[in-house]
């Protein structure tokens, strides 16, 4: 089977009071197996919305998404975790939902996230770096074919960044990634494709360098 994620004429609008705000207007995008796609755009351009649509968290207003591969939940701040629960409780929930082996997952997540005893404290007490480590560890405990990363990767310390490099770009180099980031160096180093979200539309340029140049002149 042809493995890709396709957005077909994807539109999304939100109701704000009585008015309707269109965020994405008939977007077409295809992410193939192994693609590392960077998504650039000004604040409020709809990057997170696009990621949430692809992850199936938000539903499109019109158009559709064809998922020919398994797509992770969007790795972002907030989302996916219950702040009042501990990292450990969140892990148990994920294990139950996705039917994972508890001990194996616990070992992996503890080894990857290195949260130590704070693993048993409520997630809302974590620093943003610790939240990012937990989010990555838990989503890497499940083998998705396409990972959705909304900013979180940038807040880790050097050691965590190295871990992510090994796990995500080393061991899982065959996977697809969709990364939202304002860090141009990171996009340059990791992505092989890059799109810009602007004025409700999506634009792809022939090279990463060109899209960054365009983005900086928006």
């Amino acid at each position, binding site marked *: 089977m042809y493995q890709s994620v396709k957005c077909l004429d994807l539109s999304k609008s939100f109701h704000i009071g009585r008015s309707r705000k269109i965020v994405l207007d008939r977007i077409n995008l295809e992410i193939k197996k192994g693609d590392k796609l960077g998504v650039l755009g000004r604040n409020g351009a709809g990057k997170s919305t696009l990621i949430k649509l692809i992850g199936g968290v938000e539903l499109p207003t019109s158009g559709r998404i064809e998922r020919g*591969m398994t797509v992770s939940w969007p790795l972002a701040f907030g989302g996916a975790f*219950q702040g009042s*629960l501990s990292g450990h409780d969140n892990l148990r929930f994920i294990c*139950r*939902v996705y039917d994972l082996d508890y001990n194996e997952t616990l070992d992996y997540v503890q080894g990857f996230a290195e949260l130590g005893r704070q693993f048993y404290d409520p997630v809302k007490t974590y620093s943003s770096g610790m939240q990012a480590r937990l989010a990555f560890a838990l989503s890497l405990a499940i083998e998705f074919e396409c990972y959705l990363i909304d900013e979180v990767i940038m807040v880790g310390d050097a050691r965590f960044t190295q871990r992510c490099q090994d796990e995500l770009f080393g061991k899982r180099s065959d996977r697809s990634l969709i990364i939202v980031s304002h860090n141009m160096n990171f996009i340059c180093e990791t992505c092989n494709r890059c799109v810009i979200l602007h004025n409700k539309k999506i634009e792809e340029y022939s090279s990463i360098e060109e899209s960054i140049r365009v983005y900086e002149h928006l």
Partner: protein
Amino acid sequence: MQSSERRSHLLGHERRAASRHASPSLLQSFVTQLRVIYALIMREIHTRYGRENIGFLWVIGEPILFCAGVAIVWTAMRPSHENGLKMTAMVVTGYVPLTLWRHAMGRAIKAYAVNSSLLFHRLVTPLDIIIARTTLEVVGTVLAGSLVLGGSIFLNYMDPPDDWGKVYLGLAFVIYFSYDTALIISALTERSELLEKAMSIAGYLSLPLTGAFTMTEWVPAHYRWILEWSPLANAIELIRDGEFGLKVVPHYSIPFLMASCTVLFIIGLFLTLRVREHIEIL
């Protein structure tokens, strides 16, 4: 049988692969749904009651304080008999079902918006969320109610039911009706803010319609139809028929209960399966 056998052969990597949840058979979907509901119930217990002190025992503790509190206060303050029926028995048979229904309804208001982080996981659906929440409420209140009932019988404040079968059947209808209410209320409050605000008032105003504090027979004949059209009042009458036997003239109809609960269930299911697009993801 076959699936559990296959599961044990899943090696680390295969078991971790998200792709095995991708295109499930009907049986697999069902197993997944049960697993998700179980995960949600466990999670709900931990969020609501935490891990400190008696923790999950609060599932029973909360409704027991309610039911026992009301039973004790009413027993102490009101005459020991009302229309020839023991006051405690009236309170227990009325207040326990009422608590079950009201708690299920209360937990259903905006149940999805407050839990929107769960919807990050595509295996979790709104139907799973509301079933999990309501089940926790039902299990807690039924256990609490059994303890209050047992305690009242033991202390001789009420007699054991005349016909346990009718009590169980009535309780089953109360539970059925509570699930219906939860499905409908959770879906509607997600669609309309006005309705969300109106719910607490509606909850109070509907109290006389629940038949929790009166028997239909005691109501003037030309008003009885109101209670006869209320599923909860019907179910409570059925429970009281089981408790008091020949001492009461019950007004209920099992075909009506079956029909009304099933119609409401279908409406609730219909609304819940279409609620996803109305949920605000925070």
